[in-house]
């Protein structure tokens, strides 16, 4: 590959500056993002069990519902039936709550069950916000800001990330075939970082391209749709349905409220099994929409097809007749144009191919995080080398600043998230959003401040060892405070991952060198 030297040099410069600006944010996004691959099991794991008798069978759920709706008429507009409640982790019927929206004052979700005599028991169900916090941290690249400004900044980081990918490929192309698999471990630290960075970057390039473009879409999709609305909006009379309101209004609906009862959960499941074999319904969300339209949103997954959301897709049925109102997000039953769009989302969420793909995404995500770490290290090491060649005895303030910032932010992020996992067993109800975010940001800030107070190799080693200690505390805390947390697979997984990570951090602390 022969490219003009100045062209390559241009993109090499662009790559290093863009990379160093975006790298720290991207580290947080990738590290937290790889944890969110298991957000749902982690949330079940962290939440305290619901204090209810064993859930009633699906056949008897209508009895339960009748009692719930008699006692709590406000639940009628929006309640959810869980198809297979995991033992103690979920109730058969739930309603209320803030609808999963971030940054809203949480209203408690209510959960209902029947005791032995068939009388109604209702308890508030407070889920742990730990997994949700990690997801928000991932989406907002670690910025503790309100959602809208954070998303705009995230979009800018995502744009820098795409520029870094394009420029990185151009800068690396000339040396591609010469040094593809060469990892010069024995030579200088700089060459080792460089080879690792290139190898990781090249082989996860498709993953990174998908992540970059989809993150730009996620960041700016409100703004883009506003522009589209301004560009193409036609008079209201000509439009088909409204924008606000329910999920789908595509099917013509009979506006008159019907008095017939809604279909029972077992009927809906039988209907789904007949019409969409292979689709595994997880929850049935009954809702009353405007104009007295009753719908059921059946949420679930189908292992054979990619899904639009991180964990599944849904179909909206008429609650009285079972007629499909919208199947655009139904795995395997989407029109082609929608299934192509779904695949873009699924490639970001890793929501295809089941567990192996999810585990692969965890590895790719951690690899990505390490890629940004190597990138920043490379920047610092080459800058130091250049300064020393120019005759400087001590490194400049800029290099020092960036070195401290890199080690502080990156090691602080790792330690902060480990601290969150440590805190889950001790915090009431597995941690509210503000409690979890206080834990994370205090540890993070402590590490950043320490990095600036203790510059140089000793400081980095200290920080690595400290974060190793925090991470090693995770399995201990789980054993001490909540043996029940180790019972389920997610708990065991957290403990094993924490052990491996702390080992990695301790080895890093011992081996870390900053020679050139």
């Amino acid at each position: 590959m022969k490219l003009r030297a100045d062209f390559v040099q241009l993109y090499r410069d662009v790559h290093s500056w863009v990379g160093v600006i975006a790298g720290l944010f991207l580290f947080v996004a990738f590290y937290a993002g790889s944890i969110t691959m298991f957000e749902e099991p982690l949330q079940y794991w962290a939440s305290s069990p619901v204090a209810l008798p064993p859930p009633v069978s699906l056949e008897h759920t209508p009895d339960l519902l009748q009692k719930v709706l008699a006692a709590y008429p406000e639940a009628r507009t929006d309640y959810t039936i869980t198809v297979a409640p995991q033992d103690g982790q979920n109730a058969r019927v739930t309603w209320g709550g803030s609808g999963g929206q971030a940054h809203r004052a949480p209203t408690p979700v209510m959960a209902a069950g029947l005791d032995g005599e068939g009388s109604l028991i209702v308890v508030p169900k407070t889920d742990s916000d730990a997994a949700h916090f990690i997801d928000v941290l991932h989406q907002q690249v670690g910025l503790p800001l309100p959602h809208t400004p954070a998303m705009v900044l995230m979009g800018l980081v995502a744009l820098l990330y795409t520029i870094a990918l394009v420029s990185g490929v151009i800068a690396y192309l000339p040396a591609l075939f010469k040094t593809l698999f060469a990892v010069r471990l024995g030579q200088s630290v700089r060459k080792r970082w460089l080879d690792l960075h290139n190898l990781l970057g090249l082989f996860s390039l498709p993953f990174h391209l998908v992540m970059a473009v989809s993150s730009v879409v996620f960041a700016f999709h409100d703004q883009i749709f506003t522009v589209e609305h301004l560009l193409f909006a036609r008079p209201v009379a000509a439009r088909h349905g409204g924008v606000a309101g329910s999920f789908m209004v595509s099917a013509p609906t009979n506006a008159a409220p019907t008095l017939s009862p809604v279909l029972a959960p077992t009927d809906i499941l039988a209907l789904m099994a007949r019409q969409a074999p292979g689709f595994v319904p997880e929850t049935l969300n009954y809702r009353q929409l405007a104009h007295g339209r009753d719908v059921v949103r059946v949420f679930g997954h189908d292992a054979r097809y990619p899904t639009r959301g991180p964990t599944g897709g849904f179909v909206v049925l008429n609650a009285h007749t079972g007629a499909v109102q919208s199947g655009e997000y139904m795995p395997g039953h989407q029109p082609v144009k929608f299934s192509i769009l779904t695949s873009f989302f699924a490639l970001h969420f890793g929501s295809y191919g089941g567990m192996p793909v999810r585990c692969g995404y965890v590895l790719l995500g951690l690899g990505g995080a390490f890629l940004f770490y190597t990138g920043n290290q490379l920047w610092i090491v080459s800058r130091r080398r250049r300064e020393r060649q120019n005759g400087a005895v001590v490194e400049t303030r800029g290099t020092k600043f960036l070195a401290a910032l890199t080690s502080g932010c990156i090691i602080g992020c790792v330690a902060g998230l480990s601290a969150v996992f440590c805190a889950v067993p001790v915090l009431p109800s597995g941690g509210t959003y503000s409690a979890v975010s206080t834990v994370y940001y205090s540890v993070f800030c402590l590490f950043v401040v320490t990095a600036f107070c203790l510059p140089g190799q000793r400081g980095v080693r200290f920080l690595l060892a400290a974060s190793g200690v925090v991470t090693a505390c995770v399995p201990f805390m789980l054993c001490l405070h909540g043996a029940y947390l180790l019972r389920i697979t997610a708990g065991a997984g957290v403990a094993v991952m924490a052990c491996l990570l702390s080992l990695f951090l301790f080895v890093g602390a011992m081996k870390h060198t900053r020679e050139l």
Partner: protein
Amino acid sequence: MSREVRKFSTDQWFFKVLASVFLGSLLVCGMMGVVGVVCHTDGNPRTASAQYLMWMAALVWSVVLSGCFLFRSGWQAWGVLALANSAAWGLFSLLRSVMA
């Protein structure tokens, strides 16, 4: 060694980036307009066409931002992108008046 070929450099990068952020996003909107009018989209976020336009916008803006360093100067970046903008928006208003 002086040659006639111009050299690529990061000079005036700030103005190039500024141009591709502001004029680039405006250009992307104009292109969305042209493609959207041709495909008869109504901009409803639930339609597939509106969503494809969104992905196109993200992709094109990323390409413009990555390529902006190849402009000879900040002035050239602003000039070329302004021209492209007027072309896109002109075509959009023409198409809309023809097809409406």
